[in-house]
């Protein structure tokens, strides 16, 4: 008798899963990303990534622009690390047309590229902490980024979409007295980063929100083709600057940080470490840049021989590759961007089940995606 009433009570307590859309308009989806979450209470049962809200048809656009005309578009892919995008495109063009880059230009590319990497990583750590509501820490990191953006503005004239690294070299040389100002800014950056680090990295609440959350094991990361700091936080050492060095990277003394936890905290902390390494690179490049021209001569009307070229570059988010196909005319026959965030995001539906919404926000922030690059 009592057994049957207990069974009835259990049936009466039936719970219901519900669907919640996180995005595309949401304060913490880092762009127009939509996650359709199936939830049981606050726990995610399944997650579906829906992208394409920022699809601008860039690859189709490239077919109706000349190679040089398309170069400014490339910094709009991953708009937080525009210079590194343009670098990849320039490498592809140079491979297609056999263009040689002068030595000084290579050094300048490293300087601007690494400064851009610092700025991009600063955005990542600050937007991650603001997703966890540490508003003051976000402000500290953004103020630090202002210094870097001021440096970039001095060199290129623009804070975000630089249009600086082009096929054949770079567009301008460094202004007078840049080295001294850059050293000063980098010193200030270090002190602000220390403030940020002390405020955030040891904080109990922050650790509770990120340690052991969203763990991506090394094997899972490799299976899903992840690259960049995300996989380096999972213990796999993969960095094009060391594994397939391009430009003048072999001449510099720098480390590639490696962490093994694979959780949100490691993905956050590795970017702080990478900022320090990039600072080292910028300092060395500033000291060692030889004199000389900064741009190789590329004809205004440039018709590369028919063929194709694929070039890669280590962007702030992973390995970014450009595939250019030429049919002998001034416009590319096909331009394709191999985007690291597009692949990185494929792992989210796999690690989401079991996380709460709050954990999901923390994990998504730690993956550091940029929708411009994903959607093109």
């Amino acid at each position, binding site marked *: 008798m009592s057994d049957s009433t207990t069974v009835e009570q259990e049936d009466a307590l039936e719970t219901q899963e519900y669907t919640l859309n996180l995005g595309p308009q949401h*304060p*913490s989806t880092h762009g127009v990303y939509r996650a359709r979450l199936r939830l049981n209470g606050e726990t995610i049962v399944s997650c579906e990534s829906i992208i394409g809200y920022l699809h601008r048809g860039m690859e189709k656009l490239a077919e109706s622009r000349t190679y040089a005309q398309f170069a400014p578009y490339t910094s709009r892919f991953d708009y937080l690390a525009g210079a590194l995008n343009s670098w990849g495109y320039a490498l592809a063009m140079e491979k297609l047309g056999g263009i040689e880059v002068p030595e000084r230009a290579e050094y300048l590319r490293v300087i601007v590229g690494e400064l851009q990497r610092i700025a991009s990583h600063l955005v990542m750590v600050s937007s991650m902490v603001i997703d966890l*509501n540490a508003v003051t820490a976000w402000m500290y990191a953004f103020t630090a980024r202002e210094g870097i953006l001021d440096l970039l503005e001095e060199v290129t004239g623009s804070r975000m979409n630089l249009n600086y690294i082009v096929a054949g070299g770079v567009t301008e040389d460094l202004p007078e007295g840049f080295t001294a100002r850059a050293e000063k800014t980098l010193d200030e950056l270090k002190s602000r980063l220390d403030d940020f680090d002390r405020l955030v990295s040891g904080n109990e609440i922050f650790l509770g929100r990120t340690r052991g959350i969203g763990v991506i094991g090394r094997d899972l990361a490799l299976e899903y083709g992840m690259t960049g700091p995300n996989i380096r936080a999972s213990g796999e050492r993969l960095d094009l600057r060391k594994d397939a060095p391009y430009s003048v990277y072999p001449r510099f003394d720098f480390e590639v940080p490696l962490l093994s936890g694979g959780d949100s905290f490691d993905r956050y902390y590795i970017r702080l470490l990478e900022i320090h390494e990039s600072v080292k690179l910028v300092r060395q490049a500033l000291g060692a840049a030889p004199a000389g021209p900064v741009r190789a001569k590329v004809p205004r009307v440039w018709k590369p021989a028919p063929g194709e070229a694929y070039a890669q570059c280590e962007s702030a988010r992973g390995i970014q590759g450009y595939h250019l196909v030429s049919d002998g005319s001034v416009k590319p026959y096909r331009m394709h961007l191999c985007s690291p965030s597009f692949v990185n995001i494929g792992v989210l539906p796999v690690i989401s089940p079991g996380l709460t919404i709050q954990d999901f926000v923390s994990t998504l922030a730690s993956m550091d995606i940029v929708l411009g690059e994903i959607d093109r």
Partner: protein
Amino acid sequence: MGTLNDLFLTLASAIRGLLALWGFPPLLAAAVVDIADFVLVAALVTVNIIVIVWLDRRVAAFFQERLGPNRVGPFGLLQSVNDAVKLLGKESIIPVAADRKLYKAAPLMIFTVTVLLYGFLPYGKGMAPVDPDLSLLFFIALSSMTTIAILMAGWGSNSKYSLLGGMRTVAQVISYEIPMAFSMLGVVMLSGSLNLGAITEAQRGVWYIFLQPLAFVIFLISSLAELARSPFDMTEAEQELVAGYHTEYTGMRFALFFMAEYGNLFGVAALGATLFLGGWQGPFLPGYVWFLGKSWLLVLVILWLRWTFPRARLDQMMKFNWKFLIPLSILNILLTGVGIKLYQYFTAVGR
């Protein structure tokens, strides 16, 4: 100085005297004075909200190396007035699927509770507008009513985000009332009364923060959770739930929630000042100046905490409450009881 201290009491008895002179029956005279009290309290609530909102934004700005509002009025003091006027002018949008009665009643209820709470605070000696013997108990009981209002808002909005926010808040607020009440029990045991005025009087010799430091810390932490302030503000976590239980509110209704939050902030800080910092006790300055000063000091501490820490996760917060804070507060009661008995024994022996 004495006159300044008793300013409001003198005024009140003067009004009563005047009304008696004009032939008002004493009950009516008392009613008029009560209405004047209410008007004063309401004014205090409003002024406090304006000041604290301004303080919040300026303090946050200074922490973040920026300036904050400094254009509207001297030092930006009129910024909150500006915001209130703007919110007043907004269109009243009620979601089609919302439960209209609940939706409209929730902000009214929550703000009413806030104003009621201010009635129990002892602003000075004999200056608590409403002064029953169990005023502390009334205070705690009333402040729990905000839970119902929040649930009404969350459910009535008929939106998943709001419902999630409402449920989170209820869980959080109900859970943290326990350590809050337990931490106050130590103070009650020491003073022997549940009346806020009597508790303040009993701190003539030494403030209770020195006798009950553990209780003070527990009180501070649990009041943060009661107020749903950072680091416990996942109920209105913009980054996750857009705005929690008040996602679907706009205009003046939203303003009421906002004002209730800041009003409660002062209310709880004032309670803390009364229980632990000696309320209106203090030399030279009039009692109410001390009272307000100490309350604002606690408000500043709470704001400081908000702008420094990230947000905790809901289940971690719950674990912290049930497995750590409540046992700690019970320990505090135990220690207080033992301490009182020892004190009585030694003073008896000494005599």
